[in-house]
């Protein structure tokens, strides 16, 4: 039976030089952004939500909820990768969808290169009508 250590735990056990962890990686304070958008026959495109995130912020969770009357296929990510956190979100689901749902989006660290604002993409050709809400949890320090 093997006993091994995670990347960060390994550094914690040997805290010198490059092993000193960035703020927030251990006992980070979780911050929260809430935003919404009321769509009225919105065409295919992007919805930018929340503030500009600082470089180094770690996205820990994104929750989507909607009261959309149309059947749309959305993704949640950044302008660089619009499906980074949630690859498929079908509207009118009557349930919250919690992400990240992709390995790349898990504990994603904002680089500041086209990824510091959360983007929802209406990726289909169906016009969207109704309200969507997003809750974003992240760590800075």
């Amino acid at each position, binding site marked *: 039976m093997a006993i091994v250590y995670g990347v960060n735990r390994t550094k914690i056990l040997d805290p010198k030089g490059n092993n000193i962890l960035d703020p927030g990686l251990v006992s980070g*304070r*979780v*911050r*929260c*952004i*809430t*935003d*919404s*958008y*009321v*769509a009225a026959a*919105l*065409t*295919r*495109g*992007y*919805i*930018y*939500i*929340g*503030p500009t995130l600082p470089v180094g912020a770690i996205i820990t969770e994104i*929750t989507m*909820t*909607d*009261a959309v009357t149309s059947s749309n296929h959305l993704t949640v990510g950044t302008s660089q990768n619009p499906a980074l956190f949630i690859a498929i979100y079908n509207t009118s689901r*009557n*349930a*919250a969808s*919690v992400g990240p749902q992709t390995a790349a989006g898990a504990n994603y660290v904002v680089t500041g290169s086209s990824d510091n*604002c959360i983007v929802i993409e*209406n990726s289909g050709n169906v016009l969207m009508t109704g*309200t969507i*809400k*997003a*809750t974003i*949890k992240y760590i*800075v320090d």
Partner: protein
Amino acid sequence: MAIVIGVNRTKLLDPYGNNILDAGTIAGRIRCMTDTYTAVILASDSTISMGNTLPKGAIVIGGKLSYAALGTPCPDLTVGDEGDSDRYLKAVQSSTAAVVVFPDTAGGANYTVTGTTDNIIKISLSASASGVIKLETMYIVD
């Protein structure tokens, strides 16, 4: 192709007067409230008030309801408040132990407490129950 902006981001990009966002909307500090109730043949149609009174303006961002199998006749549980008994979670069955994440309603997502009949989180039961019920509620004030 459209490029549009969320309600709060719109205000952030034009920050004056009424556009100044409430504390906590951006980079809000998450607070967590937990509570437990052990039901012993709790009567049908009961409500269980959980945790502290939420301050006016608090934004409820979600939480978890967990429960043991609550016995026959297996009540449905909802999470809400006096003003709306299933504001945050619509009816879930309690035939088997489970952990359920809320909100599952758009109305309950990022709900801002008005301080009227919505500042105490309540669990409602459709039938009598016996067993442990736990609630974790996360919210933002500042």
